[in-house]
């Protein structure tokens, strides 16, 4: 099967691949909601993997004693690779958290949902309207600022 056929096949595949973890096949241009959706999933999955690792590592004192914990933290602090990893995870956590707050506000607390209206053409979904877009742009604007602060703490702190 050629690449074109494969792409066409994925494009017609309903559900998981096209809808979630395949941003290259999704028409995300002029669609920041779609970009936020994909980023939310990718960051969420990565942070879950980090959480597993974090729980295992923080178990070190109970498993091997405090000396093992101190030597582990010294090794972690000395290696640039670990700091870069921490920096990436911090960025993922910040995006996932901020976008999560936006989702909580709109989906759970009903902020920026507006009154029900008849879907007259040209129909614009509520999520594309000014209030919700502003929240989304706020997330994208604050994310690099908070990520930079986290980077400063990790590398210089």
């Amino acid at each position, binding site marked *: 099967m050629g690449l074109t056929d494969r792409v066409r096949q994925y494009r017609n595949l309903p559900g998981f691949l096209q809808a979630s973890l395949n941003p290259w096949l999704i028409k995300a241009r002029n669609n920041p909601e779609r970009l936020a959706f994909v980023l939310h999933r990718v960051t969420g999955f990565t942070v*879950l993997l980090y959480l597993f690792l974090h*729980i295992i590592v*923080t*178990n070190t004192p109970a498993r091997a004693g*405090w000396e093992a*914990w101190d030597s582990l*933290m010294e090794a972690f602090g000395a290696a640039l690779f670990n700091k870069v990893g921490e920096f990436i995870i911090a960025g993922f956590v910040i995006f996932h958290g901020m976008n999560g707050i936006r989702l909580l506000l709109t989906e759970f607390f009903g902020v920026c949902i507006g009154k029900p209206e008849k879907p007259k053409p040209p129909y614009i979904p509520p999520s594309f309207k000014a209030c919700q877009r502003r929240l989304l742009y706020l997330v994208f604007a604050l994310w690099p600022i908070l990520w930079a602060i986290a980077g400063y*703490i990790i590398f210089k702190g």
Partner: protein
Amino acid sequence: MARTWTMQFLQYVTAILLIVLLSFHLAERIPWITGISYHESLKSERVADAYSSYGWVLLLLAYAALFHGLNGFRGMLHEWKPRHGRLWDLVFIILFLVFAGIATYTVVGLPPLP
């Protein structure tokens, strides 16, 4: 597994819990708040003090984060292969129990400082 509505509701509740608890957990590492450097805050004396003073908060954070993360992952697996729903529910339960057990042992089985 519980009803879809219940699981989604719990997903939102754990998200609210995580905003509070994770902010607190991350604030423990911010030098401008604690007055000590990031790497100093990870030394055994500081960590042991945190576990003994408010270990239950960290444990609650671990449970909430595990539930929220694993339930989100379960949702993705359900979308990927809806026919294996029971298998994904079982994966969720097993992973939650294993990692919640490790987290509990971290707080409960903590040795005294040398």
